[in-house]
């Protein structure tokens, strides 16, 4: 037990450069900003988050603890939270003001979305979870105005705790696995002919365009349904992928099999394809954008920087060195 606790502690204390978390911070802030501003542009702030007593559509109650403290879902409170959310997301986007704009954005956004559960979706949960973990992280250490002011560079080499990124990976796995397991309609299963997406595309709640949705061949929809359902439920295997990558030096056939290829990539490719289909065919708010933003956390700062700056990552250089020395191992960057 003591050894397990010490291993857990050592894992929590791992550190890395902040590049991945900073990129995630930029993406999440942009999505929050887009979500709030697009709602304002469409005129739905008053409709969905202001109480019926003040011209909103529904009777909303007193709201969560923050909204209740501020006086309930009246226009000044709602628009005040909106303003704080926009300001906080803007500061977080450019990385100015440290971690507190992230916290302010979180509380404002949560205050608003908690007012009307009928108008909220899974993407709201993904955003608030992201804001909380980013608040706890050192995501402002790089790709930020703060870094520029403190160190004279936009790209700092300073290390930060890695555990927030690990928790974001775990969150992605939990989200997909949970949603896959809760798809209990027979139409998601082979017994129902894998017809779930066919029915989704006949529901006006979600369609962007009837013509576009109904032009998709039934066979494509059946394949899409099968891939979606099974891929979501098998996402929990990503835990094994990361574990075996992190312990690549140990023996074992299963470990060797998992590490033969970088299984993060095919998983992410399937996910990205599904989300692209969602973006084209149905309107579920920024759900696909938020989910895809979470994908950056699958990759280490080293790998992200290699993509951004076009130079080989440390893992690739180590693999080359082993190959030159006669090793048959594959390049692996631990997460």
């Amino acid at each position, binding site marked *: 037990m003591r050894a397990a*606790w010490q291993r*857990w*502690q050592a894992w*929590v*204390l791992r*550190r890395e450069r902040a590049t991945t978390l900073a990129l995630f911070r930029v993406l999440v802030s942009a999505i929050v900003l887009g979500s709030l501003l697009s709602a304002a*542009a*469409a*005129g*739905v702030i008053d*409709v*969905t988050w202001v109480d019926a007593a003040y011209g*909103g*559509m*529904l*009777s909303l109650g007193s709201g969560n*603890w923050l909204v209740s403290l501020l006086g309930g879902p009246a226009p000044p409170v709602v628009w005040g939270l909106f303003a704080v959310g926009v300001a906080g997301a803007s500061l977080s986007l450019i990385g100015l003001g440290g971690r507190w704009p992230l916290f302010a954005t979180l509380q404002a956004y949560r205050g608003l979305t908690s007012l009307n559960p*009928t*108008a*909220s*979706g899974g993407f709201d*949960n993904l955003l*608030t*979870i992201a*804001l*909380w973990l980013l608040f706890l992280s050192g995501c402002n250490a790089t790709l930020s105005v703060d870094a520029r002011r403190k160190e004279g560079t936009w790209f700092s*080499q*300073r*290390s*930060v705790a890695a*555990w927030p990124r690990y*928790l974001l990976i*775990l969150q992605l796995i939990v*989200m997909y696995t*949970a949603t896959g397991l*809760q798809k209990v309609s*027979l139409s998601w299963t082979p*017994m*129902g*002919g894998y*017809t*779930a997406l*066919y*029915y*989704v595309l006949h*529901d*006006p*709640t979600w*369609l962007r*365009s009837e013509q576009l949705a109904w032009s998709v061949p*039934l066979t494509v929809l059946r394949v899409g349904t099968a891939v979606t359902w099974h891929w979501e439920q098998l996402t929990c295997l990503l835990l094994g992928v990361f574990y075996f990558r*992190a312990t690549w030096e140990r023996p074992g056939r299963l470990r060797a099999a998992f590490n033969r290829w970088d299984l993060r990539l095919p998983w992410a490719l399937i996910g990205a394809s599904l989300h692209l289909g969602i973006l084209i065919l149905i*309107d579920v*708010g920024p759900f696909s954008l938020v989910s895809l933003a979470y994908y950056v956390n699958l990759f*280490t700062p*080293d790998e992200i920087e290699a993509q951004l700056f076009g130079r080989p990552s*440390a*893992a690739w250089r*180590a693999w080359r060195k082993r190959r030159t020395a006669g090793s048959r191992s594959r390049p692996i960057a*631990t997460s």
Partner: protein
Amino acid sequence: MHLGSDLTGDGQRPVGWRAPLLAAFVAFHVLAMLLLALPASGRLGDRAVWESRENQLQFARWAKLASKLGVARDGPEFEQLLWRLTQRYLSVREVVAGPFELYQEYAGVQQGWRMFSNPQSHPAYVHVELRRGASFEPIYVSRSRQYDWRGAQLDHHRVRKLFGRIARSTEQELWEQFGAWAAQRAAQDFPDALELRIWQERRATPAPGSPEAADAPLPEQVRVYDLKALR
């Protein structure tokens, strides 16, 4: 040191009592994430939701499959079995996840991941109509490009979710509140209109591969509002 782990030598690790405290917090968050992700919608314990058309259809379909395994003979029996299991599960879930509810509330780490769990085979199209003279004329119909009164609002994904909830469940109150709101807006937007009518067109989706639905569209939840009284 793991290859490519990006560990750098200039980081400041927590020391002393902070390290185990941090480790404990991360463990707490992981546990919270896993337990709060267990399904717990209020609708699971709402009998009215279980008796909705779409859910009854699902119970019948699953019962047909379950009867081959000797589990239940028909939809109602399957539903009863599932209801008992679900209520027991909810009581256990309340105990194990309860300690994390406060953390969820203040840190914003809600974990509801029920998405497209039960696609509707009988979705509803929302109709909003005005009467200026003798008859009603449509001003808004779901997904119509021709009838798109306040389309930017009513077609926004956050409002669509409301219509989807109304179509799936028995929450009449939401429909009533929408009607009252629409009547007030129509009274302002159309000074010459006399009445507003809202209704849901329940359409059966054709079975995959079939050209037509088995059931004809049905009007439901018709409500009429006097706009003169609102001016």
